[in-house]
């Protein structure tokens, strides 16, 4: 295997990781600030993708589609926060799991009711399609590079938001001591709605970005949701830095494992068995990674308190 191919696979792993980060950031923020496990986060990802596909279909503009995905997911997020989620903050995790599981059912079948049972079309815009040649002769799709860039910009923006702005200070204070910031006159319920909508918008953006190169269909959020949970658990729940590191770790492990394990096994056994066995182990790899991390550090890489 050539060095170029290996580098290309590393890029693929990074791109997958960055996409996971967009999902995981919202999830970890909501958990860190409000202490809520939100299984319906994947549904918001789906809402973003469907909104983008609908708007792109109607207007033909990819930028408008991205804006629509942010707006639709944020609006859906704010709506569920106000009607359902805010009643769950002082409940235990069990009630949260059940209620957000119910939200998945409602969102999935509701989307199918509105958009029908067939996948929707959303494509990479003309100006971002096709490969570019990187230094070293790697041919890599421009759109995937764009996803990496957008993800990194959003990541930087989040760090800035939390470290440098007034809202960020309130969010951090809210994580540390809920009663105190309420006593200081911060409207905590507005803050919570805002944080939830922000997380939803990020998920929606991820859905739209990914929807252009994958399939926009009902249920698309669930596999990603599980991966996002793996990411935040590895990174330490509540930590944006942890989400970033965890996302890249999972992205690289999954991509490189899928490529190299079958090759590794092929050194030891006949090719047909090796590809099959390697693929089996590769699909379990990130869960093995997660179990290993938790065994060494029971609250994740950057987690303070569970």
């Amino acid at each position, binding site marked *: 295997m050539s060095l170029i191919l290996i580098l290309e*696979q590393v890029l693929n792993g990074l791109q*997958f990781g960055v996409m996971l980060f967009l999902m995981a950031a919202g999830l970890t923020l909501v958990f860190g600030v409000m202490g809520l496990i939100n299984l319906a986060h994947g549904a918001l990802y789906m809402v973003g993708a469907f909104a983008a596909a609908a708007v792109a279909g109607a207007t033909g503009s990819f930028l408008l589609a991205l804006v629509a995905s942010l707006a639709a997911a944020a609006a859906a997020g704010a709506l569920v926060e106000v009607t359902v989620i805010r009643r769950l903050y002082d409940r235990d995790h069990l009630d949260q799991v059940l209620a957000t599981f119910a939200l998945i059912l409602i969102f999935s079948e509701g989307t199918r009711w509105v958009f029908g049972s*067939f996948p929707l079309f959303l*494509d990479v815009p003309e100006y971002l399609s096709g490969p570019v040649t990187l230094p070293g002769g790697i041919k890599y*799709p421009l759109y995937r590079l764009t996803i990496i860039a957008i993800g990194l910009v959003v990541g930087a923006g989040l760090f800035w938001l939390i470290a440098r702005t007034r809202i960020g200070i309130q969010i951090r204070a809210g994580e540390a001591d809920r009663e105190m910031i309420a006593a200081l006159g911060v409207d905590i319920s507005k803050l919570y709605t805002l944080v939830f909508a922000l997380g939803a918008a990020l998920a929606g953006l991820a859905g739209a970005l990914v929807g252009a190169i*994958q*399939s926009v*269909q009902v249920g698309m959020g669930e596999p990603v949701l599980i991966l996002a949970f793996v990411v935040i658990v590895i990174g330490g729940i509540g930590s944006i830095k942890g989400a970033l590191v965890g996302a890249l770790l999972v992205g690289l492990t999954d991509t490189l494992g899928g490529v190299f394990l079958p090759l590794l096994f092929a050194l030891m056994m006949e090719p047909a068995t090796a590809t099959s066995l390697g693929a089996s182990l590769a699909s379990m790899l990130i869960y093995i990674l997660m179990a290993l991390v938790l065994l060494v550090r029971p609250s994740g890489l950057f987690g303070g308190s569970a």
Partner: protein
Amino acid sequence: MKALKSLALATAVSALALGAQADTKIGMITTLSGGGAGLGVDVRDGFMLAIEAAGRDDVEVVIEDDQRKPESAVQIADQMIQSEKVDIMTGIIWSNLAMAVVPSATAQGVFYLSPNAGPSVLAGKRCHQNYFNVAWQNDNLHEAAGAYANDAGLKNSYILAPNYPAGKDALTGYKRMYDGGLAGETYTKLGQTDYAAEIAQIRASGADSVYFFLPGGMGISFLKQYADSGVDLPVVGPAFSFDQGILQAVGAAALGVKNTSQWNKDLDNAANATFVSAFQEKYGRLPSLYASQGYDTANLILSALDKADVKDQDAFRAALQAAEFDSVRGDFKFGPNNHPVQNIYVREVIQEGDVFTNKIVATGLSNHADAYAAECNM
């Protein structure tokens, strides 16, 4: 349940009005909710189109959603057999669900006609006289693709499929007919959505063509990413990833791709013309492969009912086996294991106005029977 009851009531009333008539009850288990619902909806719509066109009030169809869960499919089957006392069952889309339902249904004396899934075990070792497959044995379309690859002079294919039984059958089927070499063989994760790593492998492998079996959303994702990657090797696949239902979601990325299918809307026969226009009129969309299979299944049942009462199992079975109905595929007959012997065509994805669709460009295999018939002892 309510919809179901009222349907039953309506037919009961009409049967009463007509006097004593031998009612035939058909149970359809198919996927109508969740991610894979598009296929089930198509099979159901195609099936019901034929039933309604026949206008027979002695045939009753009971439809239930299996949610693509084998466990629910088994339970619905039990309900249909034990409580509804159906005579004929049909509708299942997925092989794993068929494997869960078919053996016990046929063992309980019910006819099962498969409108989509055709796992190899049911064609071979566990074939049954009451089990008829109206679509294809799972390997068939892949075999045709392998044969087409030879005709097209392809010598070095990169092949990939998900790591589950149908995926392994697919690659086995392709290799059974294909004479060239393999640039690579990859099993992907079931439900995988990102194929960047596999596409990079393909680019580096020196292949002259790509064959893939990735049903549903997996295929959409793969094709869009493949088109965007700049790799421009010819792609061949079975019809599942290029069918009417999902082609619009793939868009221009699929243009020109060759795919294998036993049916297409431009097949030139009267039954097909009627089917395509009636389906479009009733449902406002082009029919898919799955819809054509549902339609054929219903017409096969109706043709057998014209000849024999379903309660007379031997006569009814002989009538099914004779397959004297106007198939939308043109010629259609059953082999000794009750699986189709049929032509499998090569289609090319084209654009007609705004709509992406297929046209037939060649015949992959003529009068093709499956490879498992010899293992079947009925």
